């Protein structure tokens, strides 16, 4: 758990490094590591000193890809497991035995990796709903903003929305945020007439969160501007602790999350840190288009979250369907 609230991608990397320096360095097991962008991300994070990496996959391809890009594998463990499915099982098995703290996706479909993570034999099932958190460091906003869910649940029902929120709140706790401030997205800050198409779902989530979660401020619908800009909040006369200070932006659709984040990444130079939450270990995904900073920060986020799980006994308290 972070001592001070983490408010930027750099602070996330610093926090992961402090965890390592305190003797709790995390090990990342990469499933089907024959993907040069993934190898590069792990190698750079290792060089930064905040994780150890096990590259599991087609060893020959892993080594030749690394050599082509001039990446040294000296400080990384390479485990030969040519078959993609076996590599996934090996990586997840390491996590199940406590030999790895984070599982990272390599050259295999996300769905295939998640199926393995959720395979009952490993006991890594968590809350039930797996969701993706896109934690953005947006230049001009004074803290990080967690957009969720932009990758896992296509059309969440109220129960899934609550789980998605709960997963995001866990990430916020791991980042040391208190209270956690949640804006439930809406195009307008009032739920009226034709624009209130999802107001009832949102209402349920907000009500349940207020009843069941402590140390949280949640409101909605609230648009992105009122959620993150003092000027906008004042113009609309919105005086709520979440206004202009949101930590989590709970979206209404996968499109909203994905597209808003990509607009901010492409045109506002936002740094993107992504992690898949909901299993008993964080799952890290990076994509080819991510910058080096994005990839490192994503891995750092996964390490910080894994450390939070370990230090707080999070999943033992939560139970889960394992």
């Amino acid at each position, binding site marked *: 758990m972070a001592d001070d609230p983490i408010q930027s991608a750099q602070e996330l990397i610093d926090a992961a490094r402090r965890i390592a320096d305190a003797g709790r360095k995390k090990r990342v097991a990469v499933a089907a590591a024959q993907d040069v962008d993934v190898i590069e991300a792990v190698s750079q994070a290792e060089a930064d000193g905040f994780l150890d990496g096990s590259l599991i996959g087609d060893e020959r391809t892993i080594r030749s890809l690394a050599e082509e890009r001039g990446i040294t594998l000296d400080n990384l463990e390479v485990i030969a497991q040519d078959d993609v499915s076996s590599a996934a099982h090996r990586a997840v098995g390491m996590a199940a035995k406590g030999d790895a703290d984070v599982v990272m996706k390599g050259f295999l479909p996300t769905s295939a990796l998640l199926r393995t993570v959720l395979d009952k034999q490993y006991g890594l099932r968590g809350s039930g709903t797996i969701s993706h958190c896109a934690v953005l460091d*947006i*230049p*001009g*906003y004074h803290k990080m903003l967690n957009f969720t869910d*932009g*990758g896992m649940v*296509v059309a969440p029902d109220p129960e899934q929305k609550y789980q998605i929120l709960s997963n995001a709140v866990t990430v916020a706790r791991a980042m040391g945020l208190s209270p956690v401030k949640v804006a439930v*997205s*809406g*195009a*307008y800050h*009032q739920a*009226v*007439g*034709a*624009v209130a*198409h*999802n107001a009832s779902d949102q209402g349920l989530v907000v009500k349940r969160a207020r009843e069941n979660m402590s140390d949280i401020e949640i409101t909605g619908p609230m*648009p*992105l*501007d009122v959620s*993150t*800009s003092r*000027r*906008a909040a*004042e*113009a*609309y006369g919105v005086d709520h602790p979440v206004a202009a200070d949101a930590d989590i932006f709970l*979206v*209404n*659709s*996968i*499109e*909203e*999350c*994905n*597209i*808003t984040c*990509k*607009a*901010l*990444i*492409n*045109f*506002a*130079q*936002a740094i993107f840190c992504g992690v898949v939450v909901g299993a008993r270990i964080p799952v890290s995904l990076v994509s*080819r*288009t991510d910058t080096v900073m994005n990839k490192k920060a994503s891995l750092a986020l996964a390490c910080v979250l894994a450390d939070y799980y370990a230090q707080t006994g999070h999943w033992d308290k939560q139970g889960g369907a394992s």
Partner: protein
Amino acid sequence: MSVGIAGFDRIRDLVSKRLEGKEPLRTALVVPSSTEAIKAIAQAASEGLIAPVIVGDAALCRQTADECGADLASAEFLDLNQPDMAMMTAFQMAAKGEVQVIVKGRGSTVDFLQHLLSEEARFVKPKSLVTHVAGIKPKRYDRVLFVSDAAVVPQPDLKTKIPMLSNLIGVCQACGLERPRVAVLGAVEVVYPQMQATVDAAVLDKMATRGQIKGAYVDGPLSFDCAIDRAAAEAKGITDSQVAGQADAMLTSNIETANGILKGMKLYGDADVGGVLVGGAVPVVINTRYDEQTTRYHSLLMALAVAST
């Protein structure tokens, strides 16, 4: 590589040229007590683009104009102190052809929209659909992106997306794009039957290919990065698209997505923005309460471009 519209000044030049030797466009400012709206109106009037018609509290408007140094000497005034009455009057004037553009001043957008869409206003013809089109010029993109719909239609089905797309293409053409490149956005650039947005996008794409939707290159589904970044598109194997990497316009599958793009760019994208409502009797400018003169002026330019086409 297409040129696109490099900035809002191009739209201004286009409107000026169209209006050469013609009367300026009669533009109603409704519920006028917004300093920034008055300044934008005065600016366009001073450039000879519009003839302002102030519909609302005349004394308050004059006082506000004096305070901010805006010159409304050429304006007509229709003194109506009651905001609801002012709105309905403006909509009815537009329906009768007495004004060619409407600009919303102060007040709630939701309330304004409810009045605009009401039967009593007679502002929307049967079978036409009112939609919002935002113009966004992020510093890091080479052209204005026209994005719909951030303000009116919450969650359109495929049938509704067809007129939305036509409205969007119409605004692009009015702003000077002969054949706009329109991306129908999805979270991904492939079709997944369980993701309705991708299915609808593919259908719209096909309808454009077959000439059922005219006047634009349409490609969908495209993810945001594939729409605006050629390298991202090529990395995904999209090499034969007339849109990918050079989109002029984007249709989103719900209101929050377009709203997220618009607000995100407005706050963090170092962007020039504007927006217009189309599909009613005349184009309408609505702005966010904190929008400054420049944004309101850009919106007005978009409305004038539509009205002068």
